[in-house]
């Protein structure tokens, strides 16, 4: 075995060159405790100066290996000196976190999934008919339907996205008040519907309710 002073950082911490950060941290804690002043196992073995030397070397080893950039640089220096095989160095094989919201939670049958709101907004701005409708004080169900058709958002897509039954959405567009849900729900459903079209939900909902005479 090599004298302590000539050992490389991996040997100092007694870990393999492909150790993961958790192992490095554990090894550091283990060695650091072993060479402490109050450690029973190393009692009287070292002079105070030797102990300090060893502790600072252990700390230096830890700080180098735990820092990915410093570690890579150190590995490179070992490889250049022929002391380490590049194959054996640590490579971060861990996967990044999985973004669960990237998943489509429901399967879409229709060819058009919900359109991005930015795209919808720009389309609404470029359509003279929509702009014209939106300036009105009141909006009927058929107006909403016109806007929706102009934006090319199928009713099924809205039903999928909002989990509102399609016959209720249809009833909103046809102003079939018999099928309307209770008032509190109606307002919520209406807003969800309008949100899917990327319109100002408060203004549009108010205009629609005003037309139907619902306060």
């Amino acid at each position, binding site marked *: 075995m090599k*004298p302590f002073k000539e050992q490389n950082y991996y040997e100092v911490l007694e870990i393999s060159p492909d150790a993961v950060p958790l192992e490095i941290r554990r090894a550091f804690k283990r060695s650091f405790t*072993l060479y402490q002043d109050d450690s*029973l196992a*190393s*009692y*009287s*073995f*070292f*002079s105070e100066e*030797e102990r300090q030397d060893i502790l600072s070397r252990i700390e230096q080893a830890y700080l180098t290996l735990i820092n990915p950039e410093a570690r890579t640089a150190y590995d490179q220096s070992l490889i250049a000196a022929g002391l380490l095989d590049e194959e054996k160095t640590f490579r971060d094989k861990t996967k990044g976190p999985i973004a669960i919201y990237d998943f489509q939670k429901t399967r879409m049958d229709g060819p058009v999934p919900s359109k991005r709101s930015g795209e919808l907004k720009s389309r609404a701005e470029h359509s003279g008919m929509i702009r014209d409708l939106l300036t009105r004080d009141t909006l009927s169900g058929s107006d909403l339907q016109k806007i929706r058709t102009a934006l090319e958002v199928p009713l099924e897509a809205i039903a999928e996205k909002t989990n509102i039954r399609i016959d209720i959405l249809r009833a909103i567009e046809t102003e079939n008040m018999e099928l309307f849900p209770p008032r509190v729900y109606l307002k919520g459903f209406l807003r969800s519907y309008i949100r899917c079209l990327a319109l100002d939900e408060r203004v549009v909902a108010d205009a629609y309710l005003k037309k139907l005479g619902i306060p």
Partner: protein
Amino acid sequence: MERSVTQIWPIGGGKGGTGKSFFTGSLGFLLAKQGYRTLLIDVDLGAANLHTIVGVPNPPRSLSDFINKRVATLDDTVVSTPLPNLFFISGAMNNLDMANLGHEQKMKVLKGVAKLSYDYILLDLGAGTAFNTIDFFMISKTGIFVTTPEPTSIENIYRLIRSVYFRKIHHVLKTYDFKALADEAERRNPRAVVSNPDLLLHVMSELDPEKGALLQRELGSFHFKLALNQLRKQDSQDIGALICKIIEKHLALRMQHIGNISFDDRVHNAVCKRMPFLDLYPYTQTALDLRECCRCLLPEKEAHLPLQGVAD
């Protein structure tokens, strides 16, 4: 049982009261029970009491008979014990000055031990790091250290192992001037000479690579064992492994931890009754630990072999 090579295990530990004699006695007991012809030699000259542990309170012959030429060979001082296969050479001296063997006398004993033919010879060493103790310890490459998990005891383990280290350097440097080497090393690094024999070795390798390499080889051939005795429940279980690690890492000597032996108040009872602890309390944790240590010490292939010996 036929064996060609005698295994010699010196058992030391620096500090007194760590259980060297108890460990030696128990190990001898286990080996003899397994059918090995085992000889225990008490070389704790001046404070011998292994005879009490093995149940021979008044040994008719002792090492001093050999040293004072009352008997011709060391073999003639061997005393049998109540246990078959277990033999014993007492260190109890009637001559008051025997604690300090002269060089000639020591060499005579060492040569005598080498001539003995047994399966295992265990040497129970005294406390301290006198040259005599160290030379007996270095009679074989497989010395066993016994320590307790206390700073005082561990301190002495390190002191003993360093003494062994220095003694080895001395041996290799017989024709050389050890003092000159030490001075040179001290000149280069004023603070570390005593506590760091490694440095001495380093300096030596530079001054005389041939001798340095020889010494490296000699030191590398040691295969020490460490038994941690009197471990209480609240003590850390891995102290032994850590001590071995430090020795391997900083002295480059091989040292193997062979096990922890639990503390048991009943050891005191057994000693007071002058009966083997393993006979009196065979089913205690301590007895279990001792057996485990013994198993660790035996070479793998033999550990399971002499079952026929257990029967008698």
